[in-house]
């Protein structure tokens, strides 16, 4: 199991990659495009989480794929190759294939979202937002702290009453807890706002945001390279999509040359991990 480690890059690199690959995975509705993104996502999952965790994921994702595959013919009775009739439904090969591709697409998008979450932490997002919207970033940071605190307090308020007067349910109990939390939070917020003002919040100076990552030349180079790869991939994917149709009969070919940039892009994180691994030591 290898740790997904991209923290030596400026956060904008993994964030840009994640946004791009998820967008491409969502729009490429044809068997070859979905195949590419699914393979890339699966490989990354295997490398970072190990076989057992990957299998555990697939245990619920594969049935999901199958379900979408089987449901689609019920909705769209289109196509030309009749497979069978189930009651009033006519099941065509094309419609079944479309369902399978949609299911696989959904699974691959889920995989890429998961990969993004493992690589891009909350700190990274804050770092990117901080330069553009300092106040929003601060608010997000506060919310990230206060929401779990609120949940903990709600649990405390409930259990304390539960121990003393027994378990109670319903609207009244919910309202009581809400009352406790509201008074408590308002009280705290007075001290918190004092603490903020005491440290110069709103003292009239333009806030600077401290960035714990610096943008380096290699970050810019990597970003430019990514943008180039994305442009080529988007071109390849859109041409492939234009040349492919499901109905009335599946038609079209996928040119390997057109999809090559997309293949490279989908394999990029896994290749980076492999390079790290085979290089033996962390690259600068």
């Amino acid at each position, binding site marked *: 199991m290898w740790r997904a480690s991209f923290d030596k890059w400026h956060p904008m690199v993994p964030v840009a990659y994640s946004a791009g690959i998820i967008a491409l995975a969502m729009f490429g509705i044809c068997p070859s495009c979905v195949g590419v993104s699914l393979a890339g996502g699966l490989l990354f999952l295997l490398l970072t989480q190990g076989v057992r965790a990957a299998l555990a994921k697939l245990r619920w994702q594969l049935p999901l794929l199958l379900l979408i595959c089987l449901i689609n013919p019920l909705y769209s009775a289109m196509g030309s190759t009749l497979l069978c009739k189930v009651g009033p439904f006519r099941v065509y090969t094309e419609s079944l294939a479309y369902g399978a591709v949609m299911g696989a697409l959904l699974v691959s998008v889920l995989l890429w979202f998961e990969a993004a979450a493992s690589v891009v932490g909350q700190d990274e997002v804050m770092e990117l937002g901080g330069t553009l919207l300092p106040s929003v970033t601060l608010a997000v940071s506060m919310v990230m702290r206060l929401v779990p605190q609120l949940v903990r307090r709600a649990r405390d308020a409930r259990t304390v009453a539960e*121990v003393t007067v027994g378990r109670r349910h319903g609207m009244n109990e919910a309202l009581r807890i809400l009352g406790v939390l509201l008074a408590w939070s308002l009280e705290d917020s007075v001290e918190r706002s004092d603490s903020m003002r*005491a440290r110069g*919040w709103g003292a009239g100076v333009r806030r600077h945001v401290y960035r714990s990552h610096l943008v380096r030349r290699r970050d810019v180079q990597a970003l430019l390279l990514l943008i180039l790869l994305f442009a080529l991939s988007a071109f390849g994917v859109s041409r492939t999509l234009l040349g492919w149709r499901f109905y009335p009969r599946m038609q079209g070919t996928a040119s390997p040359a057109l999809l090559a940039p997309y293949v490279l892009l989908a394999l990029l994180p896994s290749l980076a991990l492999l390079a790290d691994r085979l290089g033996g030591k962390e690259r600068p």
Partner: protein
Amino acid sequence: MSLVPTVCDPNPSLLPDENHVPAFELREVSFAYPSDGDGGAHVLKGASMKVPEGAFVLLVGGTGSGKTTCLRLAKREVAPAGNLKGSVLVFGHEVRTLGELASSQLVGYVFQSPDNQIVCDTVWHELAFGLENLGLDQQETHRRLAEVCLFLGIEGLFRKRCDELSGGQRQVVALAAVLAMRPRLLLLDEPTSMLDPVAEKEFLSLLFRANRELGLTVVVATHEPQPMVDYATCAFGLEEGVLAEVSLSALRTRPALDLSMARVAPMTQHARERLLDDVWVRYERSGPWVLRGCDLLLGTGEVRAIVGGNGSGKSTVISTIAGVVKASRGKVGRRYRGRQALLPQQPKALLGCETVREELMEWSAAGGYGESEVVAALERLGLTGCSERHPYDLSGGQQQLLALEKLLLMAPELLLLDEPTKGLDGASRTLVAERVNELASQGRTVLVATHDMAFVKAVAHGVSLLFDGRLGETEETETFFEHSWMWRA
């Protein structure tokens, strides 16, 4: 009270010369909060004092004595609104005319609660918060963060989330966040009252280093001066708005709890009930064990204290007996289920009504009590005149006693108290202790988890020491303290 400003005797090595401008000075300061009556009661009456640069000053007084007002007057951004006469000077500048930016750079302020004063979710962001507000550039911010972390030895916490930290660590982070702004005068309002004794000592030693090594002037408002007397260069007492210098040696010998009522001998001990039998508890499936083979026998009518270090699992013992936390292994006695009450560390978890009276009436249907019992309870609390006030308008000690009284109206046989004296001043702790002694005299069983040893001496019949997830053999309170090495004094 003399009208001549009291100048405290500073550490001579720290003072450049006699004519040096004091770091903090009050000149004939009177202050009253606005009220509908004739100007309201005076919180400060002609207070004068001079704090030389580099001093470590204690400001001692009970709750409501005006300590906080005194400190806040020196910090423009959080100064109370009201009628102020006289002058408050910081390094020779009148505070009222000091700009907000200048004030936030010159004067640092650390608040009481480690929870409430933390603003951001990660430690690094919290430390950078004040520097961002000052508009410092990357290079300067980086240097200051580095230096404050090195000085306090908290580099290891830098990338952590604030919620992962203990209360003591969080308070150190709050101190660091203020120190990073490089103030010359540091004001602290009860900074250690929510901490356990070990964390308190750690915090104070860091504060002391900042004072001696960086020449920072420190003023600490506290109701519990004993742990910091040795660091202080002088002390002022505040009583009913009157400020006067007090000698440090007088503070050293002050008793922690002033009990008019002696501890009650246990009622005839009936059968001892086995409440925990080889109990193992952990919070995550593969997490560390918090309790490992924990046993507890509790006599009827006994007041038992559970003591132990920070994070040793005292609260877990209480929660397990209450049935809030499930044991992974072992048996938990159910004798008191439905006839027990739990006072949480934060009484606010119990208080959600609009008025004190409603608060006490809330469970009347479930508890089978009525208006007359509530009136009696109000009288016991001394809050008869305040029955229509919001519970949050009461002092911390009164809130604690109100929460306790609310539980007692349910007539529980077993009372579980989790750190009932946390954050309370001596007078309030005494009141809580007296109330517990009263309960003991009525034959109620009380289990109290605390690190307040003076409180243990005042109320407990027996003490159980929690360590390594296991409760040691229970000893009588006297025997426990006699055999103890660190708590004998």
